[in-house]
């Protein structure tokens, strides 16, 4: 019987993804390790490798399909000796095969972790009326428990289900209502871009952060003159690296977190989670939206190593090629808008982390030194803090340590 190729879970939290495009056609021979397709997850576009050999018999989910559930069959692979005639059977036998199937299709990059609630490909049993009410209220039926016969979702279940925070947002998978310019001659003209998976995740996570995390903000000014001089000096000494101010910021944050480990922490319902490693997330703008690749063990890496790793991660991020392990996790985030001339800003915490540092531009400002006005290169940094994890004094202590490192950059080299 042909092997079912199932939609892979490319990250532990992935429940659905978009099938961006197939790299094999029906009839193509497939070897283990061949790239079959590109899968777009909520964070990145990833290559999906074959784990079996054979011939790609039938593509079940075409290019550009949105919201494909994890473990949903996406193609059939014919084994040696099988021909197209054997394609009919597996569809009929889908139910019987499904439990064993994930192991077959899970690629090396894909931990076969499937959230049980959305055991993929399962049909949601709901009455037509319940479906319509859910669609109108924006209730996700996969999260509703059915009280009808055999767990069927009926009207009453949808009415009892909590409405999502934003009303009227269509659930994924439901046909999106077309933007109807109701009163075209009055309102401004517009076009609508469908939300990408990444945009949906950004919207959901940041809304959640801003609404549920009690933020407070601490701002500190750092004098950059010594750092700029050191940077020019170091950059003049070698060709295999080119340090940016941001690389120094990453290094300073990593060392400051070692000194004030209480800032390298997350809030959970039962405990404060103190991270043992210093893994720093750095926000990178991409054409599709914001993503935060992680520099692991940043405190153990020198400036040149940090700089090169950051360049590589940022490049992958812009190309949508980050692997889940390259953007998941991290204990602390840096967001730097200095290159755009932003003086200072307050960032939204990247849950479940406890802190995010918003870095402004380095610029010449009048300062008072020893009672006299002088000109100095200054940089303002604002720390957004989850007050449930980190109190004001800890935040201030962290910023003081950070400032000391930035202003005395030679100590960073120790």
């Amino acid at each position, binding site marked *: 019987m042909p092997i079912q190729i199932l939609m892979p879970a490319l990250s532990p939290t992935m429940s659905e993804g978009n099938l961006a495009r197939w790299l094999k056609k029906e009839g193509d021979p497939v070897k283990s390790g061949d790239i079959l397709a590109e899968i777009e997850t909520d964070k990145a576009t990833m290559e999906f490798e074959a784990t079996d050999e054979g011939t790609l018999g039938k593509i079940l989910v075409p290019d550009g399909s949105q919201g494909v559930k994890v473990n949903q069959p996406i193609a059939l692979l014919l084994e040696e000796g099988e021909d197209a005639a054997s394609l009919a059977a597996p569809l009929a036998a889908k139910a019987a095969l499904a439990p064993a199937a994930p192991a077959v299709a899970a690629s090396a990059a894909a931990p076969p972790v499937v959230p049980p609630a959305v055991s993929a490909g399962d049909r949601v049993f709901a*009455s*037509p*009326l*319940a479906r*319509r009410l859910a669609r109108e209220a924006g209730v996700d039926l996969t999260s509703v428990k059915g009280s*009808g*016969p055999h767990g069927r979702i009926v*009207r009453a279940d949808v009415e009892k289900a909590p409405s999502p925070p934003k009303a009227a947002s269509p659930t994924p998978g439901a046909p999106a209502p077309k933007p109807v310019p109701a009163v075209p001659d009055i309102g401004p003209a517009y076009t609508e871009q469908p939300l990408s998976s990444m945009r949906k995740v950004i919207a959901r996570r940041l809304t959640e952060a801003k609404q549920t995390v009690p933020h407070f903000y601490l701002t500190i000014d750092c004098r950059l003159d010594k750092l700029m001089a050191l940077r020019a000096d170091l950059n003049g000494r070698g060709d295999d690296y080119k340090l940016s101010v941001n690389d120094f910021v990453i290094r300073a944050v990593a060392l400051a977190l070692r000194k004030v480990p209480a800032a390298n922490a997350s809030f959970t319902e039962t405990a404060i989670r103190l991270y043992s490693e210093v893994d720093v997330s750095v926000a990178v703008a991409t054409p599709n939206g914001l993503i935060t690749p992680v520099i692991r063990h940043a405190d153990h890496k020198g400036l040149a190593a940090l700089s090169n790793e950051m360049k590589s991660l940022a490049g992958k991020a812009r190309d949508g090629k980050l692997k889940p392990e390259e953007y998941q996790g991290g204990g602390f985030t840096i967001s730097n808008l200095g290159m755009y001339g932003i003086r200072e800003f307050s960032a939204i915490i990247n849950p479940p982390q406890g802190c995010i540092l918003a870095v402004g531009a380095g610029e010449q400002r009048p300062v008072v030194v020893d009672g006299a006005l002088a000109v100095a290169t200054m940089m303002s940094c604002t720390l957004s803090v989850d007050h449930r994890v980190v109190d004001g004094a800890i935040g201030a202590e962290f910023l003081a340590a950070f400032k000391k490192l930035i202003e005395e950059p030679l100590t960073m080299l120790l």
Partner: protein
Amino acid sequence: MSDNTFDIIVIGGGPGGYVAAIRASQLGLKTAVVEREHLGGICLNWGCIPTKALLRSAEVYRNMQHAGSYGLSASGIGFDLAKVVARSRGVSAQLQAGVKHLLKKNKVTVFEGQGRLAGKGKVTVGDGKAQLSGKHIILATGARARNLPGLEADGKLVWSYKEAMVPDVMPKRLLVIGSGAIGIEFASFYNALGSDVTVVEVMERVLPVEDEEISAFARKSFEKQGMKIITGASVKSLAKGKDEVTVTIEAAGKTQEVTVDRVISAVGIVGNVENLGLENTKVVVEKTHVVVNQWLETGEPGVYAIGDLAGAPWLAHKASHEGVICVEKIAGRNDVHPLNIRNIPGCTYCHPQVASVGLTEAKAKEKGYQVKVGRFPFMGNGKAIALGETEGMVKTVFDAKTGELLGAHMIGAEVTELIQGYMVAKTLETTEVELMHAVFPHPTLSEMMHESVLDAYGHAIHF
């Protein structure tokens, strides 16, 4: 377990009680039924079934009279009242034997006699003929015709349903008090067999629980058949003569006298709550009905009530369904669902037939729904025309907001057989979309059900 100890004892062997007993036995519970008169209850012996047999005779008779319109000829058309009644009794007898057999097959023990609660978990049969113990006792004693003071049935000139079902004479002139399902079915039967029928209804319209449009349609049709209908009227007094009754009727502030040969009193029913031993229990009785919760539990632990005894709607299929819910809950099944009263269809087998489920248009509006209403006439249906049954309509009421089918109301030939389609749709919570997508077979009366839905959304095809 001794012979007289049971898991479940059901008092009353009607459509509620015997169905509950069979289901209980299927679920492995040792079950007894206590029945004082006849298995199958009123429904099978003196209600639903024998009246359907009578009305079938009336229908065939009517068709014979209209043979000419089908290109047929028939002469010497007549009927033998005694044989019509005998057929009806035969149908009941056959089904009663069937119920007896079903109970036996399912190993339900039947005790004959009046059942009565006699302390916790105890039931006596007759005057102490047998003492039974049961963990759970289901009361299913049903209901009987209501007797209004002054209008009491005497069995001779003033009939209750029971005498009306086994008439010894064909009344030339008949007065029916009450135009609910029971009254109208008898009116229809006697009218078809040639009685001069007058119907008196206290409400402003006949079949008052039905949709107003259906009521109006029915009234017009009945009057066309020669019935006299007086609504908003009450019977003030009956003056009984030797073989006739003069009835004083008050309507719209005026009184009139009508003299008839027989009167049928069909003014509702009362629950059989007496002689049940409820006095020393926590069972609550309100207006002759036992108060129960959604699982048919009474105020007394271990005592349940189902069917007519537990209140409206007084329908056999409601009783049976409650019986099943009740015992499945007792048996601890976790897939039991309470009865949704809005999904219980009602059928009246007058001519033309009436059937409905759910909310009437007026009730829906009263509940605050914005409605979409569809109608389709029998006149627009090919099969109806071929049958020569062009009188009738199908009306559907949808919630404009959600597309939920709130109610369906039908009048015309065979609508009692058609209503189940809407009932299934309602139970499955379909919206107008699925009903529109459903392919109805051609040529059938059921196509009107489709068209009525289309009409509610403004695109009926054939009208």
